[in-house]
């Protein structure tokens, strides 16, 4: 039986980072992957959707070309070319991971893994099973799209994220069920590309994980773009037997029937915990995810779990960070601390973009903080007006006693690239004082971050 010091199961942004960090520290390391190095993130998630969303940006720019004086005829669009761009990017990055594995001397084992015993893995490929031993096994098997009891992804009329990012034709009428990050990104993408989109959410607002004010602005921007947003609405039944797919929607104003060509189901994810042999070894799970301590350790000796399979937030960068923490803890690196989940930023790449870090106003208050709130609207920001995208808000939440930045919430152009400024401020435990005395360049969208901080003390200059 082949023996390693440490084996990682799953080659996504949690798994491959864990393997590289382990190899750097001197572990004899292997990584088991059943399909694609890079996992969902690189192959079927973060990266390919961003490639498609770039196409949506181009579509949007073309639509408003007239505003800037351009006029043209015979505009055409071939969705297959956009999908090809997205797939090329994914393939390129996946090959990059293979190179990184090789460079770091990590053995890549193809196949599906099962924890056969304590410190032992069985990897099956094409019906042939091999066993491997390791004192430390890290599960980073990720998660997959969840189905509803009455609606399941079938790859035809009902798409999951994977089918939604490899369309062969643009659906004319699209229903998106679920308005979390994935749902709103697809709603935004297809709306910009030309589909007529209805977005349905069961709770009272879209992007329910974000601050309520941000959700409200997102809903307003979506409605203005022509996306039909229905909140507090359930899809009671879906009939795809006829030519049209008929959705029976139950909302605050009663029932309605909606005829669409395509449905995207994006109602959350569940952890890939099956077929891993966890039950027979009594590995503790909770609501479909593996239970771990702050360092990824499970209740089974020598077994660890990181990333999506170990619970929310389901973000690639959280998985990568947990990977490093888990491996360094095993290696006894000094000063390793558990991940502070309040400092994990979240980004949603709809138009306008949404980005946040830390507590929402409501979360901060329910945690017992006395808060001071800063707000700055992008319609008073010169750069936002200049690029004709002056819809948006920067909201900051400070503890009024200590001045600690508890949370920051942004909606607007390229805010996903700006949130890091607040992330660094939080990590350094900066107060509003340091942020006020930091010089923000002009003209930038990020000046609004500064103004929002100033506004928390009633000192905003431009509003």
């Amino acid at each position, binding site marked *: 039986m082949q023996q390693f010091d440490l084996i990682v199961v799953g080659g996504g942004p949690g798994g491959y980072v864990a393997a590289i960090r382990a190899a750097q520290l*001197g572990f004899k390391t292997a990584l088991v992957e059943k399909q694609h190095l890079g996992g969902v993130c690189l192959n079927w998630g973060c990266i390919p959707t961003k490639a498609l969303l770039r196409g949506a940006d181009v579509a949007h720019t073309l639509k408003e070309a007239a505003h800037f004086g351009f006029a043209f005829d015979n505009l055409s669009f071939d969705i297959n070319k956009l999908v090809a761009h997205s797939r090329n990017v994914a393939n390129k990055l996946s090959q990059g991971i293979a190179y990184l594995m090789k460079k770091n001397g990590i053995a890549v084992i193809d196949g599906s893994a099962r924890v056969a015993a304590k410190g032992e893995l069985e990897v099956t490929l094409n019906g042939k099973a091999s066993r491997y031993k390791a004192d430390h096994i890290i599960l980073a098997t990720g998660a997959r799209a969840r189905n509803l009891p009455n609606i399941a992804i079938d790859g035809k009329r009902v798409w999951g994220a994977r089918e939604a990012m490899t369309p062969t034709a643009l659906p004319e009428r699209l229903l998106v069920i679920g308005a979390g990050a994935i749902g709103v990104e697809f709603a935004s993408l297809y709306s910009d590309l030309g589909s007529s989109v209805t977005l349905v959410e069961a709770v009272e607002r879209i992007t329910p994980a974000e601050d309520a004010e941000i959700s409200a602005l997102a809903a307003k921007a979506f409605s203005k773009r022509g996306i039909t947003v229905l909140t507090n609405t359930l899809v009671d039944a879906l009939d795809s037997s006829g030519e049209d797919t008929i959705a029976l929607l139950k909302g605050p104003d009663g029932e309605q029937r909606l005829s669409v060509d395509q449905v995207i189901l994006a109602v959350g994810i569940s952890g890939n915990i099956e077929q891993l042999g966890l039950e027979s070894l009594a590995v503790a799970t909770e609501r479909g995810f593996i239970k771990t301590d702050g360092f990824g350790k499970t209740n089974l000796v020598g077994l660890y779990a990181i990333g999506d399979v170990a619970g929310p937030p389901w973000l690639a960068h959280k998985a990568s960070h947990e990977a490093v923490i888990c491996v360094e803890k095993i290696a006894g690196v000094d000063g390793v601390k558990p991940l502070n989940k309040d400092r994990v930023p979240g980004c949603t790449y709809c138009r306008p973009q949404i980005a946040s870090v830390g507590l929402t106003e409501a979360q901060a208050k329910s945690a017992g903080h006395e808060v001071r709130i800063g707000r700055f609207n992008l319609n008073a920001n010169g750069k936002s007006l200049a690029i004709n995208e002056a819809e948006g808000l920067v909201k900051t939440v400070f503890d009024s006693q200590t001045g600690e930045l508890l949370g920051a919430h942004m909606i607007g152009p390229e805010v996903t690239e700006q949130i890091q400024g607040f992330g660094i401020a939080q990590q350094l435990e900066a107060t509003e004082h340091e942020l006020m005395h930091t010089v923000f360049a002009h003209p930038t969208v990020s000046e609004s971050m500064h103004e929002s901080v100033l506004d928390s003390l009633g000192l905003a200059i431009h509003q």
Partner: protein
Amino acid sequence: MSAQIKPINMPKWGMEMAEGDINSWHVEIGAQVNAGDDLVDVETSKIVNTVTATNSGILRAIVGQPGDTLAVGALLGVLADANTSDADIQAFIASHTAAAAPAESSTPAEKSSTPAEKSSPPAAAQATTAAPAPAKADTKPNAPDAMSKLAAGADDSGVAASPVARRLAAEYGVNLNNISATGRHGRVSKRDLDAAVSAAGGQLIGAHTASSSHAPRYPDDSTVKATPVARRLARDLGINLHQCRVSGDRGRVCKADVEAAAALHNKLQAKPSSTATEVAVEEAFELQAMSGMRKTIAARLQASKQTAPHFRVQIDAELDALLAVRKQLNDANTNAKISVNDFIVKACASALTRVPAINVQFDGEQVKYFRDADISVAVAIDEGLITPIVKQANSKGLIAISNEVRDLATRAKLNRLKPNEFQGGSFCISNLGMFGIKQFDAIINPPQGAILAVGAGEQRPVVKNGQLAVATVVSLTLSSDHRIIDGAVAAQFMSVLKGYLEQPATMLG
């Protein structure tokens, strides 16, 4: 202006370290060093380890010369900036030397100020050398005669000598067969060589000043309020935050304050150090210098075999009952993956408590009888082997021992053990069972008194009540130091150990 003069002192690695031998310096006088750089290899009775810089600066003087044995805390060298005058450096060394008692009984005549005449081509940086070159000792009239006697003799390549002594002997043209050895592990030391050369009226190459401890110039600055950038910069530049003015927000030392302090002390300049390169010769083998760990293993085990009269007692133990208990424990506890070796650690701990005469360290004069069983477990790693310690194994349960051994072994392979995790121990276990080895003898890990060698647990035919039967059997061999452990005691220990292994429930008591 002694604020920017930083001493390099002999560190204390582990409770028992009182002194260390200087092996070799990694940097030359005049070279710029940064905090964390390797400075000098020091050998103790247990390990060869490298002293790293805690400050940055230019190495202005080397006080501890290769071959010297110096006490913990003794001054090894001096770091300072380029602008510090040689006189200040001398005064600094003098102030430390005056306060310190010499760590060894070298005669004053052997001592003089610092620098090494033998150090390679004078670099420009050596203009800053701390002290003038020592006056060369006058050669006595009869010196050539006496020295030529020292040079005569048969091939001395087999004589045990420290690397420094061997190199110096070549420079003096002295045959090591003519030198009486008093060094560690019975080797010819630099001191032996110097004594012989002095006695013969020869001229000493390089001399040194031994000196000792000294207190830091500034108190710990970890509580000084500073911005993160300022704290990092200060550390990198070797600036103590107490040295800095405070002009940052809310009374914090900011980056500008540290830079101002650094500018004041001219800390910002750097000088690359040059290293000599050797011409590689194509050979039919790969020549590798011994690693520090290899040297330590070589020296300690050679000394053990040479000084400790080993005797061995061997016993077989049946493991079937133990294997059944192991399965029960592992099946019942998700947090347990107990190996047979973990049981042996636990059984040894129990047996050492019953037969404390085995649970000892011996330094050649006195025997230490330990209250707790601190069991060293030999772990093979790429560079050699290391023996992390399960401390107080007698008061730990099997699951705790098992998880501790796994953690220690993991970190041993990554070279991440702390010195106190592998230095010491009252007993040692070496297990080669995983390779299918049936039985072997181990060399005692000094200063311990005994070591247990564990073979593979395997099914063997046994005779019970006149009937042939099959049992899982392991062969255990204890090597003991007969100076302090007698045959009957070793036999008693092995019989008790066998009892614990064959009836594991008795370990619970």
